[in-house]
């Protein structure tokens, strides 16, 4: 069998950004498809195959957790191919480095794969056009692909894609410098709203998530893990657990030493014939734990330590001018401390994974955001070569960063190996909330100095939080450049004296990415403090924010000696562009009717924040009842995310971001006592429900710039805009989340 007949790498330019894509020309590659014709398909790269029936099979290599990416990237490819969307099938890729990066995290999918998808589609389109030209014996320049046909323009003859596959499959893929990409005006799908490909499966209950996978002979597992991070089983008695009908055995999993990274937490696994039996038996386990070094973790005490760290001098991450001097001589001095708690991800599908270890091979079915890391981790815990591990990616019932960590998949792999049968590990909601990779708690201290005219002349920002790096390496006490680059050092205001510092903080739980990550606390503090400065200056928040942002320009952090990774993208392609930030701010203010009259105890609040190389501004309108209860009649959000693929999904992400932002602001908090999470399930770990849901109006700023992120940038401005609105409504400043509404009662 021929494999990888030719293989080449080429460079693809996307604006000034340069990506490397490896295309494989593999004429025997077949889609994993029941419908694929038995003849040789046209498959010029790993993302695409066209068979002689004309069916176009596009491989979605990023994970679908609700953003619509399984639809969005195929839209880009199909558009460039001139394919008829009705003749496109989507298959989900397994975890394999040949697809390039598959870690669906960091709002990167469209940012990093818009151009590769265009290139992949264009290559096949040109091969089809060349095939038609050869068939008709006419110049290829007279042949144009249009909606699943190639048309000979002078004569209007046409041949369907399927009929050209046999000839095209024998042609070499065109080299990158010969690819002819469609102009924006020629686009057929990109920029237009399309329903997601999984819509009908979802609404009929036939969509398959990780938790829905069933294999013959599969055992069902529930695992009792130590309530304290780093603890282990000292002794246990499983007699009563084993007596539960349907229970087959109780198996101990060794905990990985801390920091445990992506490896299993360890514990006692009940293996049963159904999930209910496994869960019931777990409650009958008698376990004595050695709680280990984190048994003293206490959120109240930790908050005090973190706040002290944020008030003291820290590591300097950015320094312009002389903040101490400017503060000392300023006409007005403003100080504020902000606090954001731990959050749990709480995806509606708790972590779940199916593993089948069969001799020296392992096959996984899991809702993973990062199948390549899952593959590595599973190989590591089993002692297998990575080539012996297959990762099948199901739909994800929410991700929010939780499912980029494959610890739950590794648990399933280890247990299948021990038990000698396929297993499904299903986390309970309590497991998910108590043993999560928590969003970092964060304390911040800000000081600002205003001159006699109310202009900001000094900005001091100190932040302290446990770093995500602490989950992977010991003795991490400070944030890294990527973390401080999420809303601290990239503060965009035109202030001549700026100092950003990072205080020490130790981690006592697994800290992990949570949608929008460190932008949540940092945007909360920065966008709230801008509002506090406006109030101190006696100015309208919108007018003051415009002045803080200053004239249109690109902020050059490198010239300031700041280490700023810019979400992994080149700063030339994705600058910190004040002009664009101002456009987004002005758009949201206009749409929201900023400045219009409101009843007493109603208010509007504003925030704008750049993250994941997009800009989102929000205006939240709040009404505060005399008893302190809040309602939120309306939210306006504007986004500049560059080129938009599927505008309906961009709007959906903003609508959802408003809700997640309200969960963070109003309801959710994980607190620790004696090293244990005090919450357990939705009754005490609350998230936003339909009753608080505002009418969210999502506005997209038209742009033909390179695509930015969409999944995460909507969340950060919501909490500060809400708190600024409460201040506008009643003069009460909120500096800690979740909001204690008892402070909002009418005096």
């Amino acid at each position, binding site marked *: 069998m021929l494999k990888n007949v030719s293989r080449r790498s080429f460079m693809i330019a996307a604006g000034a950004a340069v990506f490397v894509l490896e295309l494989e020309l593999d004429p025997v590659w077949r889609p994993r498809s029941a419908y694929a014709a038995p003849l040789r398909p046209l498959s010029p790269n790993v993302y695409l195959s066209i068979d002689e029936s004309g069916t176009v099979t596009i491989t979605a290599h990023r994970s679908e957790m*609700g953003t619509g990416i399984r639809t969005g990237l195929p839209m880009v490819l199909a558009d460039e191919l001139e394919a008829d969307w009705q003749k496109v099938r989507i298959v989900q890729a397994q975890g394999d480095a040949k697809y390039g990066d598959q870690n669906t995290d960091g709002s990167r999918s469209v940012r990093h794969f818009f151009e590769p998808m265009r290139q992949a589609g264009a290559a096949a389109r040109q091969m089809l056009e060349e095939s038609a030209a050869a068939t008709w014996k006419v110049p290829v320049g007279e042949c144009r692909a249009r909606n699943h046909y190639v048309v000979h323009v002078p004569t209007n003859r046409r041949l369907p894609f399927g009929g050209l596959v046999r000839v095209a499959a024998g042609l070499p893929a065109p080299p990158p410098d010969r690819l002819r990409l469609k102009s924006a005006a020629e686009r057929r799908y990109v920029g237009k709203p399309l329903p997601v490909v999984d819509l009908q499966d*979802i609404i009929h*209950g036939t969509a398959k998530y990780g938790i829905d996978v069933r294999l013959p002979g599969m055992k069902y597992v529930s695992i009792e893990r130590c309530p304290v991070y780093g603890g282990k089983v000292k002794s246990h008695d499983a007699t009563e657990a084993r007596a539960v009908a349907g229970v087959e055995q109780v198996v101990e999993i060794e905990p990985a030493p801390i920091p445990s990274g992506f490896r299993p937490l360890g514990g006692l696994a009940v293996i049963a014939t159904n999930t*209910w039996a496994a869960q019931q038996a777990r409650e009958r386990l008698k376990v004595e734990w050695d709680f280990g070094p984190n048994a003293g973790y206490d959120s109240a005490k930790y908050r005090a330590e973190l706040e002290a760290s944020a008030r003291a001098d820290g590591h300097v991450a950015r320094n312009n001018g002389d903040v101490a001097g400017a503060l000392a001589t300023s006409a007005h001095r403003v100080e504020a401390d902000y606090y954001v708690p731990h959050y749990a991800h709480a995806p*509606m*599908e708790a972590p779940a994974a199916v593993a089948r270890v069969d001799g020296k091979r392992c096959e996984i079915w899991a809702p993973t955001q990062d199948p390549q890391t899952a593959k590595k981790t599973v190989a590591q815990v089993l002692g297998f070569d990575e080539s012996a591990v297959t990762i099948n990616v199901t739909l994800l019932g929410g991700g*929010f960063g939780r499912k980029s960590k494959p610890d739950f998949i590794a648990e399933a792999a280890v247990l299948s190996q021990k038990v000698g049968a396929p297993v499904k590990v299903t986390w309970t*909601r309590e497991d998910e909330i108590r043993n999560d990779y928590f969003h970092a708690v964060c304390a911040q201290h800000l000081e600002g100095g205003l001159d006699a005219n109310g202009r900001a002349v000094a900005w001091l920002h100190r932040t302290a939080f446990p770093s995500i790096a602490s989950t992977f390496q010991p003795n991490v006490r400070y944030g890294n450049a990527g973390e401080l680059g999420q809303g601290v050092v990239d503060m965009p205001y035109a202030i001549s004296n700026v100092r950003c510092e990072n205080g020490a903080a130790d981690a006592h739980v697994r800290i992990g990415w949570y949608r929008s990550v460190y932008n949540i606390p940092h945007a909360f503090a920065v966008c709230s403090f801008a509002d506090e400065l406006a109030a101190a200056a006696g100015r309208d928040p919108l007018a003051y924010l415009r002045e803080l942002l200053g004239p249109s320009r690109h902020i050059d952090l490198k010239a300031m000696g700041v280490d700023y990774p810019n979400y992994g993208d080149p700063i030339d392609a994705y600058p910190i562009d004040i002009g664009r930030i101002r456009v987004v701010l002005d758009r949201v203010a206009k749409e929201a009717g900023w400045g219009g009259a409101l009843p007493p105890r109603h208010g509007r609040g504003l925030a704008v924040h750049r993250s994941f190389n997009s800009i989102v501004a929000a205006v939240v309108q709040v009404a505060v009842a005399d008893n302190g209860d809040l309602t939120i009649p309306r939210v306006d959000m504007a986004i500049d995310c560059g080129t938009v693929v599927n505008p309906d999904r961009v709007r959906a992400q903003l609508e959802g971001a408003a809700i997640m932002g309200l969960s963070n602001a109003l309801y959710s908090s994980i607190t620790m006592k004696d090293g244990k999470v005090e919450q357990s399930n939705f009754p005490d770990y609350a998230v936003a429900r339909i009753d608080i849901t505002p009418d*969210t109006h999502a506005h997209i700023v038209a742009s033909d710039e390179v695509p930015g992120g969409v999944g995460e940038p909507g969340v950060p401005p919501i909490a500060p805009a809400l708190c600024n609105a409460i201040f506008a409504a009643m003069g009460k400043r909120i500096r800690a989340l979740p909001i204690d509404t008892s402070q909002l009662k009418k005096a």
Partner: protein
Amino acid sequence: MPSVRVNGRTYDLHVSDDMPVLWVLRDIVGLTGTKYGCGVGACGACTIHLDGAAVRSCITSVADAAGKEITTIEGLGAHGDHPVQRAWAAANVPQCGYCQPGQIMQAAALLKQTPKPTDRQIVDAMSGNICRCGTYQRIRAAIKSAAEAV
């Protein structure tokens, strides 16, 4: 040993009487459209109809369902195109989609009982169903449009 009727079919089960219908459906019968979300009746992901009324299958034992007709998302509407499902598609409600079977079952029960619900009635009926993606605004709109279509 209990038996249950699900979407018009009878299943004889070899399970204990206290097993929740959720796990009977998912692990024994093999209908996985009904989702586990919390296990304590606090999120609505597992919502089914028991004799036409919306219940949380995670806290409804198989004994409680004896002699009653269970309808799951797979059995909603004769051809799987209940007005609520059509409205859901028209509004492009789902994001990850995991909670949507429960949302749809809850909404279908609401409209059966209250064909023209007020905004307040929609909020009251749907407040037990969590969507972490935050699709509530479109859920509200889809219920209103389904109510107009019926």
